[in-house]
């Protein structure tokens, strides 16, 4: 990666300009990521983060956003790809234009970037599976609410989970459907499952909103007490997973790290010519009733500009 | 109305026209197609927001800029183009715009039934307009106008789709109204109607007032309208039509369509020879349109056969008929014949585009030249061939339809009410055209509700009644209107064949 480019105006007090292309602002997790990134970037006064570009789930839009940033000659680029393949070429273009790229959250199919920072969805799926095994010592029936089927996180969160619950052959996934990451989709699906299946012991939602949507359905049917709910994301917002664990709606959720803090630090290092680790895989934290309050406080950014 | 003027983009439709009508008087408005009659009346009825001049009613200036204003002043108008909502019932249409906030269906239907009965229409008030025939719709328009408390009633060609019997009934209604002090303005191209109903005739030409007469003298009126004397109205020389047999129809039966009011045809046999004009007479709903449409391949017959020029002829759709040199000037130009939003050239060349193809593309120059020639020949009053058809006056639209079919150089031309809404001058031209077509060895089959027209033009007249041919008269037989009418009302009775 190139060092700080003081070339353009030659002044020492140059302000670095950083662009960020987000795959979809309107997902709560990503909104949180945006908020955090803006927050942590403020720690570096010589770096200016341009308004975050939202691809609204469209790869094509995102490719042109990346190209826009290249055109604008930003000093560094952060990308949270919608899908790996489509962004690959665009990232390579940036790379050829000598713009350092930090891939945040999802991968691309090229090595031509400066750093990757992201969570490990397979690992998180595994942890969720282990928690399920713990919650169902005598085995039991699980239903799984998946994200959009073709999304990589969906594939990984499913894979890790299934590997982990194989530890107990008496645990079965009796039904799974696509909830498209949406709460509204999850509720009627869960209602149908409750009508079909006598015994459901655990709901595994690929994100918290879906798990909570299922919870609403179970609560309505008077079965919330007999069923355990596991989600993923663990956002520190009033409507998020940590609160839900605190309230006892979810048995557990797993913080899917935003990587915002790490991304800000990495950008700063790259722009000042320091070496960075190329692949930074972030761990996860399990949210339980015990640590929920603490975690919420730690990640809560409300009230901060 | 005083010094009324109105311009459309590229057209000065009216210029300083004044008109006065007294209580209980019937004033007829006469003029060529595109003279500005409808425009003048539309202004009175509040169709146009902007115009020049002033309107006075009962001695006081009335500001009429919307249909609502007009209604407030007791003005009702039956528009030239029928204006009913097809998906609504007759009753709903009649009271449209004047309903109570919460509908009183019973009262509406009762009043509707009463009005319909007054016009001799035996229809349920709940019937949807789309299930009614054109003539019925026209009478429903009349009923709609009558249902209001009118002081001035404007009728823009109310009889163009009506047969004799209905016209008579309409006269009765008009006389009843004038008896109650209503002023009536009546637009029609049928001069004989004016003789009968009008107290005074006002003539317009090219958007200007020409003059008025209380005594109807046809020749003089025509002279005033056209600005030149016109010869014989029906210029068909006797004889003609001894050529070879062009079209032969044998035992043709076509099912009707339940709900739509389409008349079934039963065992129709007829023939048209080259150079012959054959007329089809009948009452409303007799099946005349149905017959022409069937010959044009629009309906699927269940029995019978046809041959054209000696070869079997089984058109499955109009395309096949056109390919065999058949043309249909349909009854309803707005619905069946014209793409109103497009240009004259587009419409006129549509069925004959094949003629203008070069290397698979349309040779636009040749196309425009041909259309231009045809349009000029028919004296369509228009700024050019790229003018939007929908903005032409009614009669000129009809001429465009004729131009369109003449461009296909048909050998057999079917005409359904070809002179509906056409002014006298143009009518004569169309009649001349029919004659010359026949003289050129073409066959003409024409359905018309105007018996004088048929009697004057046709070599033979077929009479239809309820889907059957009940009589046939040749020119030599010199049939009278009465004889034809009798056959047309023959119902199941026996007739010659």
């Amino acid at each position, binding site marked *: 990666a190139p060092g700080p480019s003081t070339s353009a105006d030659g002044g020492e007090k140059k302000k670095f300009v950083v662009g960020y292309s987000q795959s979809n602002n309107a997902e709560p997790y990503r909104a949180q990521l945006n908020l955090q990134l803006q927050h942590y970037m403020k720690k570096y006064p010589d770096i200016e983060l341009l308004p975050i570009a939202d691809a609204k789930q469209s790869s094509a839009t995102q490719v042109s956003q990346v190209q826009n940033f290249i055109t604008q000659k930003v000093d560094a680029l952060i990308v949270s790809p919608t899908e790996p393949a489509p962004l690959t070429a665009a990232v390579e273009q940036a790379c050829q234009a000598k713009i350092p790229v930090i891939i945040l959250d999802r991968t691309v199919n090229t090595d031509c970037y400066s750093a990757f920072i992201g969570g490990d969805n397979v690992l998180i799926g595994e942890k969720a599976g282990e928690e399920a095994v713990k919650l169902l010592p005598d085995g039991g029936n699980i239903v799984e609410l998946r994200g959009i089927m073709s999304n990589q996180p969906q594939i990984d969160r499913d894979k890790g989970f299934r590997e982990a619950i194989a530890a107990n052959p008496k645990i079965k996934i009796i039904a799974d459907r696509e909830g498209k990451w949406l709460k509204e989709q999850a509720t009627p699906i869960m209602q149908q499952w409750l009508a079909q299946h006598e015994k459901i012991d655990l709901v595994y939602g690929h994100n918290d*909103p879906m798990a909570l949507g299922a919870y609403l359905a179970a609560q309505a049917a008077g079965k919330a007490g007999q069923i355990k709910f596991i989600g993923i994301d663990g956002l520190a917002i009033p409507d998020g997973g940590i609160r839900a664990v605190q309230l006892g709606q979810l048995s557990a959720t797993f913080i899917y790290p935003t990587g915002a803090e790490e991304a800000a630090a990495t950008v700063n290092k790259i722009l000042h010519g320091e070496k960075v680790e190329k692949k930074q895989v972030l761990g996860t934290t399990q949210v339980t009733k015990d640590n929920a309050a603490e975690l919420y406080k730690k990640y809560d950014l409300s009230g901060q500009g | 109305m005083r010094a009324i003027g109105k311009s459309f983009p590229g057209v000065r439709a009216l210029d300083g026209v004044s008109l006065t009508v007294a209580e209980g008087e019937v004033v007829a408005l006469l003029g060529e197609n595109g003279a500005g009659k409808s425009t003048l009346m539309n202004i009175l009825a509040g169709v146009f927001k902007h115009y020049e001049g002033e309107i006075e009613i009962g001695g006081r200036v009335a500001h009429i800029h919307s249909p609502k204003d007009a209604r407030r002043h007791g003005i009702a108008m039956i528009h030239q183009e029928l204006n009913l909502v097809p998906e609504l019932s007759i009753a709903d249409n009649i009271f449209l715009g004047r309903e109570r906030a919460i509908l009183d269906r019973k009262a509406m239907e009762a009043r509707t039934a009463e009005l319909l009965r007054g016009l001799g229409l035996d229809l349920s008030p709940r019937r949807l307009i789309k299930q009614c025939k054109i003539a019925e719709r026209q009478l429903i328009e009349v009923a709609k106008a009558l249902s209001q408390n009118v002081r001035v009633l404007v009728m823009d060609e109310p009889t163009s789709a009506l047969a004799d019997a209905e016209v008579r009934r309409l006269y009765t209604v008009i006389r009843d109204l004038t008896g109650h002090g209503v002023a009536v303005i009546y637009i029609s191209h049928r001069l004989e109607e004016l003789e009968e109903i009008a107290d005074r005739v006002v003539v317009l030409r090219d958007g200007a007032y020409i003059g008025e007469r209380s005594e109807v003298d046809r020749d003089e009126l025509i002279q005033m309208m056209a600005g030149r004397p016109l010869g014989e109205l029906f210029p068909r020389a006797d004889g003609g039509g001894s050529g070879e047999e062009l079209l032969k129809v044998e035992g043709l039966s076509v099912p009707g369509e339940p709900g739509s009011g389409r008349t079934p045809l039963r065992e129709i046999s007829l023939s048209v020879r080259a150079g012959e004009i054959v007329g089809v007479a009948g009452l409303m709903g007799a099946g005349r349109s149905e017959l022409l449409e069937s010959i044009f391949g629009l309906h699927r017959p269940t029995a019978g056969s046809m041959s054209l020029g000696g070869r079997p002829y089984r058109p499955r759709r109009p395309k096949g008929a056109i390919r065999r040199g058949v043309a249909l000037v349909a009854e309803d130009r707005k619905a069946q014949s014209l793409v109103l939003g497009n240009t004259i050239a587009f419409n006129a060349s549509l069925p004959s585009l094949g003629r203008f193809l070069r290397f698979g593309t349309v040779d636009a120059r040749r196309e425009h030249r041909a259309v231009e020639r045809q349009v000029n020949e028919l004296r369509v009053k228009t700024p050019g061939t790229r003018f939007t058809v929908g903005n032409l006056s009614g009669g000129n639209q009809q001429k465009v339809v004729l131009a369109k079919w003449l461009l296909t150089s048909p050998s057999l031309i079917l005409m359904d009410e070809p002179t509906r809404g056409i002014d006298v001058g143009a009518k004569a031209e169309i009649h001349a055209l029919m004659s010359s077509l026949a003289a050129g060895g073409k066959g003409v089959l024409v359905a018309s509700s105007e018996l004088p027209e048929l009697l004057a033009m046709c070599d033979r007249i077929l009479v239809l009644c309820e889907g059957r041919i009940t009589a046939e008269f040749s020119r030599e037989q010199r049939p009278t209107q009465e004889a034809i009418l009798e056959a047309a009302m023959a119902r199941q009775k026996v007739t010659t064949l």
Partner: protein
Amino acid sequence: MTATTEPPPPAKAPGESRLRRTFSALGAAQAYIGLVLILAVGIATKGEVFLNETNLTNAVGAFASRGILAVGVTLVILTGGIDLSVGSLLGIASMTAAMMLSKYSLEPWQIVPICMVVGGLFGFLNGAGTAWLRIQSFVMTLAMLSVVRGLDRQVSDNVSVGTQIAGPDGKLTPQAEAFQLFGTPGHNLFDRIYYPVLAFVVVCVVFHLILTKTRFGRHVYAVGGNPTAARLSGVNVTAITIAVFTLSGMLAGFAGPIDAAYSASADPQAGQSYELDAIAAAVIGGASLAGGKGTIAGTFVGALILTLLDNVLGLNAVSDNWQLVIKGLIVVVAVVLQRPDLFKFFRGGSRS
């Protein structure tokens, strides 16, 4: 002369009207064929599991907010327009409801009118653009879809807002408690009636009456059926156009709190692509996008077809991919079966 055994063609008025009545009753029965088929399949494959109050309530409840949108969209379609913005309007109304509840602790009965005003305002703009600026409603409401979604996301900061607001005592505030009655699953009015279902049915009944029994209703049909005729008959076409868009917006506003309560939160994405479901319900129910043709009863049936289809496929554990395929096919079949001229077609066929 041929003797025929045909019935006498010029039917007399009373006979004709009896015929017509039978006909229309038949047509009406036919409009339910698709629905009946789906019910039959549901009962055949899942019996009790399908045909019980809870399941049906759940199914209809999940669709209720879209059903309400469909009623508004039907009004617009009847005038010959289209409203693509209803999904966004529902979204912003849902967000408004959640914010009124969480920020200002308003009572539910205060929230509903506010949401309706918000929705109605944007709907009015749709109507104004269509009637005054004479923009095609497709474009106008597509633009509105975008504008309102942007505003929704902006005011919410892209974060979903929960409606289960806990007071200082850790329990739900009375307002939040009451708000749940708008549709949070398991919360019923009088412990019996699920509000979304009730709301949907009431909206249908009210607008059915408006369309069939009032002057306004006639004018809506007239504007869609023949705008020129309507204008010449003294119908204020502009006012009617603006009115239907405004009503559509108000209904979206009315559906907002239901959607928020159903998910116990307002998502900035809420309502996305609902417009397609709403329009589909109207059109499956027989509304013609050309205007002038359609009924609320039809839309009601269309909405039920869509929701029960989802339900039956879900209960039968059809895979998500095949659900998409089957859903599309069944919609086509239902529409064809429900075509009022289907029987005529057959009769015509058997005759000829």
